[in-house]
């Protein structure tokens, strides 16, 4: 009985998310001609590859009961670092890519250490990280730096053909590999189990002898690294570096993770759910584009309404399981 309950409680949001996605896709297909095609579906991945990558990182952070507000700014900083190193310092991509990836990783590690060692709130530390990263990218340059380099053009423009005259981009492959590795890490490694344990109760995790310190710092380092990777993908997508890139992206990411069924209190959720969450955000935008007459702000209102629905759903599930646990 208790086993079945905990299964329900954990999986219902995920099932609801997938059902919602299918529902929205069918709605689009019935309403608009040309919506029901493999390429429209694949475009969801192409346009949101970077969002998938940061949502995966954010899932780990939220699973552990924390939050990372710095991811959007890290994307901007990474794009700025990559652009200025490529265009102004004329360095080869072999140097640019590792250095850009280090940016977020180091920032994430510092944030994680501050949060853990000084017992600071993740919310406020990553808020400072957010200001810092965006400020630093403005210090590099206030203007947009456009990138004109064979490597970046190749990454941006090359298409990987799929059967049926469809294609995906290299970024999609990166994003899917990241998601696959993350799913493996979350469910089949000690690190992953420790993340869930910390999210359930940090004190219990500590008393169980789990490596809380190392894991907590690693979580934020991972999120920073993935934010930088997303920043690179975003740079391929935009072919420029700019301090205002990905403004407010942290909110979209959190929304995707919540819609994907991860509890914001930590301890329960799935990486795969976050990927579906990103696809739902993508499909809202696609529907608005297909509708043609709807203005862009309807995206925000729709995301808000969906967030509300999912959060209330989460509450109802928690209530029900508490009630049943109480009577049983």
């Amino acid at each position, binding site marked *: 009985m208790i086993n079945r309950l905990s299964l329900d409680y954990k999986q219902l949001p995920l099932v609801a998310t997938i059902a919602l996605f299918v529902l929205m896709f069918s709605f689009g297909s019935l309403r608009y001609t040309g919506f029901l095609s493999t390429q429209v579906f694949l475009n969801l991945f192409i346009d949101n590859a970077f969002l998938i990558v940061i949502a995966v990182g954010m899932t780990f952070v939220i699973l552990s009961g924390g939050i990372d507000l710095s991811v959007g700014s890290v994307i901007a900083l990474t794009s700025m670092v990559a652009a200025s190193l490529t265009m102004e310092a004329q360095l080869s991509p072999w140097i640019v890519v590792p250095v850009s990836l280090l940016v977020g990783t180091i920032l994430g590690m510092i944030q994680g250490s501050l949060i853990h060692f000084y017992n600071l709130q993740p919310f406020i530390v990553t808020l400072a990280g957010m200001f810092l990263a965006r400020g630093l990218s403005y210090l590099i340059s206030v203007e947009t730096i456009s990138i004109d380099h064979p490597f970046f053009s190749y990454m941006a423009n090359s298409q990987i053909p799929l059967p049926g005259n469809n294609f995906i981009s290299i970024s999609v492959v990166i994003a899917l590999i990241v998601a696959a590795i993350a799913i493996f890490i979350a469910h089949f490694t000690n690190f992953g189990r420790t993340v869930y344990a910390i999210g359930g109760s940090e004190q219990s995790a500590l008393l169980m002898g789990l490596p809380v310190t190392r894991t907590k710092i690693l979580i934020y380092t991972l999120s920073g690294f993935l934010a930088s990777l997303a920043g690179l993908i975003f740079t391929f997508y935009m072919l420029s570096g700019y301090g205002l890139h990905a403004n407010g992206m942290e909110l979209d990411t959190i929304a995707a993770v919540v819609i994907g069924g991860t509890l914001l209190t930590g301890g329960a959720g799935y990486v795969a759910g976050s990927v579906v969450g990103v696809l739902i955000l993508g499909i809202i935008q696609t529907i608005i584009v297909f509708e043609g007459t709807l203005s862009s702000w309807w995206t925000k209102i729709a*995301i808000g309404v969906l967030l509300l629905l999912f959060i209330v759903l989460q509450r109802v599930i928690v209530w029900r399981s508490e009630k049943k646990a109480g009577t049983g």
Partner: protein
Amino acid sequence: MKAIIKSRLFWPILVLMLILLINLFFDSSFFSMEIRNGRLTGSLIDILNRGAPLILISIGMTLVIATKGIDLSVGSVIAMSGAIGAMTVASADGTGLGPLLMAIGLSLLICTFVGGWNGLLVSRVGVQPIVATLILMVAGRGVAQLITGGQITTVYYDPYSFIGGGYLLALPFSIFIAAFVFLIAVLLTRKTALGLFIESVGSNPDASRLAGINSKNIMLMVYMFSGFCAGVGGLILSSNVMSADGNNAGLWFELDAILAVVIGGTSLMGGRFYLTGTVIGALIIQSLTTTIYSIGIPAETNLVVKALVVLIVCLLQSPEFRRKVFGFGKVKGAGEQKGKEGATLL
């Protein structure tokens, strides 16, 4: 002397003084004030005037944070309030006060209402504050853009400019608004039991309920008040520029407000709040911005400086950090404090 240093307000005031003194170093006439056309002008007045919206919003945020909550939606509520206010008076001209009162009434009513919506989600549905207000933060900006039609709406109705740009007794009117709301908040929380109720709900909602306090209504009330404050701030900001911009009005205000509250010494863990500290925190942020502009440092560094200030303030408030850096002197106090925090957590 020891009592002064121990006071919660000592460090914030010291930082504020330091920032103002740095200004004096670069501009010797920084503290001077003069009366021009019956209006008191000077850098200090300017900081107060421009800081008024932030002060207002931070006061609302303080009470929310005191109940262990957080209100991320204030930035969007500012945009909504400005949009509603500007759209109400958009077609008005002349000098009649009717449209002005209508705009103020309508904006504040709706902002208090959406604040109440946050409060309902937190207190009745039991959603975490950070998530409950995230909904309105995302959707509210969309609604603000919906109201203004995605355009920047300009107002050509003179009385509207009085809210943010008017003068009373030689001082900017916005200062009076901020001071009035501050006084009301202080009176209600320090002269009645309300403040104690808020603190007790913040440290333990269940225990408070068992002690006979209506925790749910207290929470509902602080979110409504925060919405109201954001509404007033939004009107001031929109009146300052005589327009409404659903996209950019109040952007990042929630972060500045949280920052002001934290600098003022209110812990994000809830249970204690310091309204005066918050006002000083808001003034620190405003004078930092003014200083950066007036010294001629590129405005872009503003964010970096803010980040460093947040970190330093948080580190100074962290018992672990003080123990590690300042050595043994504080071990006892820090331990006690940590014990207390543990108790409230459980």
